[in-house]
């Protein structure tokens, strides 16, 4: 009898502790300060404020200025022209489900797609006509706790949705490539809105795939290239190069000469790089947004702290 009383008392105490902790963390994550009304006006650096999850903006010319935080919560955010995309995982969904929000120039929601997975990468094509994303999906993986990736896209003006580009016919070394474990991640479109690049991962290797959206086929042009990002002039690709297990180095590949340049950032970067312009590359690292020259010179410089997923309006 004494034991039962003791057990019940303990259980009540522990359950109460859990409930108090859970309910009190509601307040921690609650809004701090009113939300600013942001627009996609040129000259801004957008980012995800890592403390609140809200999308914030600072002037690109003066990133140290007081940031403005919107009411929009995203895990990944990207912009081009008058289109933005926000990937936000739905709270309380297990396994995770992500809302892909297509936003207009005033950050109003134009369209929503709900897809399985956890946000990883997001981009908008330079013409603002397509948004694309990469999600991590649990389950169809090869290790018990492994993940696979699913890269998809949405045509803003036609409403066409490609849930995954896994079915893209692809050629490696001139031969059509088939494998059960094909994964794609990190799509990047050229200014013409047709040519695009992505990472193909299969059998422990990664390839840079160059593809034609209209003809819907692609070919591997180089090995060990992950998360490509095409420069505004469409001639170079910034990417992360695997230099060790779980260690990546930011590099730039000249598509004409296939010459590779390692950037001045020596730390491991696990992000899809973003071109601020033809000379500077931005990326998220260690809870901050950084900038580094695209030609391998100079040193990295921190733009905004407590930030991730940079996006710029040109």
């Amino acid at each position, binding site marked *: 009898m004494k*034991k039962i009383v*003791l*057990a019940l008392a*303990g*259980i009540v105490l*522990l*359950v109460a*502790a*859990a409930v108090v*902790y*859970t*309910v009190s*963390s*509601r307040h*921690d*994550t*609650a809004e701090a300060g009113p939300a600013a009304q942001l627009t996609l006006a040129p000259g801004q650096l957008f980012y995800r404020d890592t403390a609140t999850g809200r999308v914030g903006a600072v002037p690109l010319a003066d990133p140290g200025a007081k940031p403005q935080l919107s009411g929009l919560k995203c*895990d990944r955010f990207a912009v081009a022209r008058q289109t933005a995309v926000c990937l936000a*995982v739905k*709270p*309380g*969904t*297990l*396994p*995770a*489900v992500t809302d892909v929000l297509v936003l207009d120039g005033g950050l109003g929601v134009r369209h929503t797609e709900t897809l*399985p*997975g*956890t*946000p*990883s990468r997001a981009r908008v094509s330079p013409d603002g006509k397509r948004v694309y994303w990469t999600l*991590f*999906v*649990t*389950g*169809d*993986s*090869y*290790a*018990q*706790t*492994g*993940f696979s990736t*699913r890269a998809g896209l949405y045509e803003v003006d036609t409403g066409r949705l490609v849930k995954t580009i896994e079915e893209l016919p692809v050629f490696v070394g001139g031969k059509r490539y088939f494998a*059960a*474990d094909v994964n794609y991640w990190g799509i990047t479109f050229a200014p013409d809105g047709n040519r695009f690049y992505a990472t193909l991962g299969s*059998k422990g290797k990664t390839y840079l795939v160059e593809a034609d959206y209209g003809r819907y086929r692609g070919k591997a042009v180089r090995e060990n290239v992950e998360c490509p990002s095409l420069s505004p002039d469409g001639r170079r690709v910034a990417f992360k190069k695997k230099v060790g*297990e*779980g260690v990546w180095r930011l590099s730039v590949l000249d598509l004409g000469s296939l010459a590779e340049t390692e950037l001045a950032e020596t730390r491991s970067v*696990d*992000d899809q790089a973003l071109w601020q312009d033809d000379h500077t590359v931005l990326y*998220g690292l260690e*809870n901050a947004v950084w900038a580094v020259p695209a030609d391998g010179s100079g040193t990295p410089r921190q733009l905004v702290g407590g930030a*991730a997923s940079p996006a710029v309006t040109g």
Partner: protein
Amino acid sequence: MYIAASRTSDLAAGTDRKPALKRVSANVLALGAVSLVTDVSSEMVTAVLPLYLVLGLGLNPLQFGLLDGLYAGATAVVRVLGGHLADRWRRLKAVAGFGYGLSAVCKLGLVAAGSSVAAIGVVLAADRTGKGLRTGPRDALISLSSEPEALGRSFGVHRAMDTVGAFLGPLVAMAVLALSLGSYTSVFFTSFCIAAIAVLLLALFVHDRPGVADRTAVSLRAALGLLRQQDFRRVALWAALLGLVTVGDSFVYLVLQRRWDIAATWFPLLPLGTAGVYLVLAVPLGKLADRIGRWPVFLGGHAALCLALVLLCGPQAGLWLGIIALGLHGVFYAATDGVLMAAAGPLIPRDLRATGMAVVQTGQAVARMLSSVLFGLAWTLWDLRPAVLAAAACLAAVALAAALAKPVRP
């Protein structure tokens, strides 16, 4: 001497049949409750950890999968150590309790680790160590608390309760995420509180080693001597050999998904399907094992898996075939997991029960890990279907050989 005695009582089983729950001791039910509550705690972390790593910390989960595989191998050693220390100190409950306690504290460790990847790695390793330490002593306690003729039923009841916990874990995690507006640390903290409840239940209601123990010295030499005993060695060896030709869960689900083109949203339901069948059949198959013999049921489970693999690769891909294959996968678990422990238990002297069970489990676990690597290789070389068919053929051959060898006589 003891072994012979327990085997005769095994042979006498199945004659008198009392109602099910009366034959399962209070200690087994208490251990089942501890496992149930612990599984709620650990499964809620398992469910949110990937989300936390990717969204909260911005990690690349592909890399984390690798790390996780590494831990699985490392805990094999800890498992035998836990079993051995429990026997040596004659403190099964204490060692199991330490394992449960360590895993509970690790949930707080996840809260404290913050965004440090290294700290999270250390915490997860410690969590796995706790799991490795407790499993052998716990199964030894179940085995020692049961009448020899009802071992299968006892393990069935324990495993069924365990599975209920695994079902509840993700649901509790979802509720916490909804209540806390998506705070991961709330999930970890709640997980700690629930794990602490399990430790409390263990401390209050589980009794250490009932009955009088044989006064044989429990030394490292005696533990190694276990492997010199023919009966025990044969069971351990066959269990490991069968483990080597067993296709891992994730591969089974993967084949199901590829052939039946299951939408990703439904994919997580596949493990739930297996667990559901396991939950329903754990007790009946445990009872069946007590009546007709544990080894035949254990091998029958492998036959079910073999059949499931053949169905998965057959010419037809109807919906019903997929459901049957998934059901057979559940049968495989219900007929093997607890039943193997029930089969091995009586072959191990009471004083070495925890060590012996840990040795059998470790052999099986290492073999299954190796099998995953080999299967992954075969898949890469030959593609999925030929690899599955080859695995099914190997499984059938080894299971047939094991049936002819009959390592457990009754």
